[in-house]
């Protein structure tokens, strides 16, 4: 069963029985050291920033980490790795638009002066050049779905050796998601972008996302090879017949998940920004004028 463990950077530790050998799909829980290390690292980062104390918002931060752990070790991940493009997509979206914004929202408020400076510098760069965060968020999404890259991200494409790509994928999604969310949810409210610009930011992100989703939905079956390959663990019958998710339906669902629900997340974000802005009391500072100010000096 050793080769099965290759699908992440390090050997997996099955929680319930051997990975892929569980009788039911829902039994395939798997803890992977790579992911555990990542989570440990991020927890450490929090403690480092907060000076070892749990501050207000820590729940959000660690909630994000727990979500990450769930996505990465639950049967969803098993399905995503071996059977379903759509499950893979759900995982992407949760990390990019769920975990990452939670981490950003949950960053500690009280930090040391040095850290404060670093955060301020990051916030400043990102709020003056919102396109940077935008490009990260959308770019990483597109990058991982270029067919060649996509297929390479799976161990099946590699004959031997340890494949670092899946871990890189998770990490890059998390980082890009955080950079994307930063100008909107960043820890320093003074450096958040103008809410109306935020609406534009999120709407264009939705367009970028929709285009990719549309492409995947209507692309002919077979441009992503991975999920067409052999049935590794004998669940093919159940998934394709029992659940009725054929390869074609699966690819459509993947594209549609990226297209429709993903857009709703962006749109809800837009509406949240707008609502806060419209109902804010006068004189309450909501944002600082950023470098890119489409509306000019008059808002």
């Amino acid at each position, binding site marked *: 069963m050793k080769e099965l463990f290759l699908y992440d950077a390090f050997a997996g530790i099955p929680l319930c029985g051997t990975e892929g050998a569980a009788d039911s799909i829902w039994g395939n829980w798997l803890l992977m050291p790579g992911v555990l290390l990542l989570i440990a690292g991020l927890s450490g980062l929090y403690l480092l920033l907060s000076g070892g104390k749990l501050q207000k918002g820590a729940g959000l931060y660690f909630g994000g980490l727990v979500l990450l752990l769930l996505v990465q070790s639950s049967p969803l991940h098993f399905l995503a790795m071996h059977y379903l493009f759509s499950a893979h997509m759900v995982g992407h979206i949760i990390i990019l638009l769920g975990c990452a914004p939670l981490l950003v929202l949950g960053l500690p408020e009280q930090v040391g002066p040095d850290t404060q400076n670093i955060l301020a510098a990051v916030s400043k760069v990102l709020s003056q050049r919102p396109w940077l965060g935008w490009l990260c968020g959308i770019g990483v999404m597109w990058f991982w779905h270029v067919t060649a890259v996509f297929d390479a991200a799976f161990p099946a494409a590699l004959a031997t050796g340890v494949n670092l790509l899946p871990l890189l994928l998770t990490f890059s999604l998390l980082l890009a998601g955080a950079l994307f969310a930063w100008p909107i949810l960043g820890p320093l409210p003074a450096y958040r972008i103008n809410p109306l610009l935020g609406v534009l930011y999120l709407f264009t992100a939705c367009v970028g996302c929709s285009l990719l989703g549309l492409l995947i939905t209507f692309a002919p079956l077979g441009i992503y090879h991975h999920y067409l390959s052999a049935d590794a663990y004998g669940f093919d019958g159940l998934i394709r017949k029992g659940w009725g998710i054929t390869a074609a339906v699966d690819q*459509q669902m993947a594209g549609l998940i990226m297209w429709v629900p993903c857009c709703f997340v962006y749109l809800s974000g837009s509406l949240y920004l707008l609502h806060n802005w419209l*109902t804010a009391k006068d004189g309450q500072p909501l944002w600082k004028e950023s470098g890119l100010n489409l509306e000019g000096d008059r808002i």
Partner: protein
Amino acid sequence: MGKLHIPEPEEALPGVELEDNQGLLQWISSVDHKQIGIMYLWMALFFMLLGGLGALLMRVQLAVPRNDLLSPEIYNQVFTMHGTTMIFLVATPAILGFSVYLSPLMIGANDMAFPRLNAFSFWIALCGGFLLYFSFLAGGAPDAGWFNYAPLNQRPYSPSPGIDYYCIGLLLAGSGTVATAVNLIVTVLKLRVPSMSLRELPVFVWMVLINSFLILAAFPSLNAALAMLLLDRQLQAHFFDIAGGGSSLLWQHLFWLFGHPEVYILILPAFGILSEVFQVFSRKPIFGYAFIVGSGMAIALLAFGVWIHHMFATGLGITVNGFFSASSLLIGIPTGVKIFSWLGTMWGGSLRFTTAMLFATAFLVEFTIGGLSGVSFAIVPIDWQLTDTYYVVAHLHYVFVGGSLFGLLAGLFYWFPKMSGKIIPEKQGKWFFWLFVIGFNMTFLIQHALGVLGMPRRVYTYPDLPNYTWMNMLSTAGAFIMGFSVLYLGFIIYKSIKSGKKAPDDPWNAYTLEWLTTSPPQLQNFKEVPPVKSFRPLRDLKQDNPNWQLQDDPWKID
């Protein structure tokens, strides 16, 4: 109270001589947003008479089964032109007319940001309209329906030049619309009185702003589709030509990517108009300003994620249909929010039922019917039964007429004193209201049943099946009442302009800045505008000045 300098139009327009009393020439050469706005409204009325004539012809043809008054060839041209006219040459110009006329006034500006571009947009749109109608003389009008599906729009199936005129006419009108949208956005964002923040924009201006963005995002895909179609027809390209490897679905995707947002383009400004009317005649601020603006924004954003529901019956598979069923159902929520916001505005108010308010009130019921039948198309299996039947015809008329047009008529009666300086007698307005409402419901309510019964849309005749005949006859009778009421409207407008009572500057004791200036406004709208403190600046002004005198007691409560 600091007064602010507002640039005069002359300053914004170096080298253009603006003089009064030059007759028609003054209108043709005008770059004044008010004159252009009014010309848009005349254009809409003119084409509405043409489109309405088409509608009456169709209803006469359909009054009895197996009628051969119109040949199928003519009938298909008539219904195509009816739809195209009403969408592109009536509703759109009417909406742009109100937007262009009112937006600068409501934000305390003296003109649009680019007055000459404004005039250009109007004239190019008008030329597009004339070009479209020229096709009747050039060998046949377009005959493939307003959404002009491929491959029926290809040469072999529609050899007359009508569809070429459709492409060029709509490209021109569409370019004009896009240019106006750009102009409106720049105007609203840049030319507001400095003290008016975006959070104090009147609801109508908010809707215009959102709508303009919607236009910018929606029209390019129509323009692209039209360009492709023109290449297909003129240079034998193969975008939509199936035999040459083209795709009929591509047209549907591009067209509905435009077409669905277009529905909202036609309704959002009407929502804005209604919000103003409800506020003033309920004597209350809009209930949930943030909600009304936010739901407008939500509708605009969602509008781009639902177009596939026009294609539920094309066999895209249940996965695709399922997702778009969800998004289409969701768009019903912000629309519902608006209905309840308006009810909330009326609740606890002091309601004055002028003609404008009557239209607004009737709108609530008509639009709820149209909205609910719209939701039924988001439920895929119901769509499978009822799409492309008379049920759709009924639905879309409840949305376009019961929604957009009722809103526009409310606006017409509300702003008529401002635009013309004359008053339409309330009695005449109410006669028109009742005639129109009765005619409208008589025409279209029964068409829901016709659709359920199995009558497809766009048929030039039908066999004598049970219930078909009396239902169609009833609908035709209603159409004539509607047609008559529109003529009556033309008559009362004409009469009021000609010999109506002079209107005071602020006849409704209203809330927004356009009522601060004279009726009709001078070339220079404002010399000075007081600082704005909320989205009802004129009301604030009256509150702050206990000595403020209404020129004339406007309220005749009957």
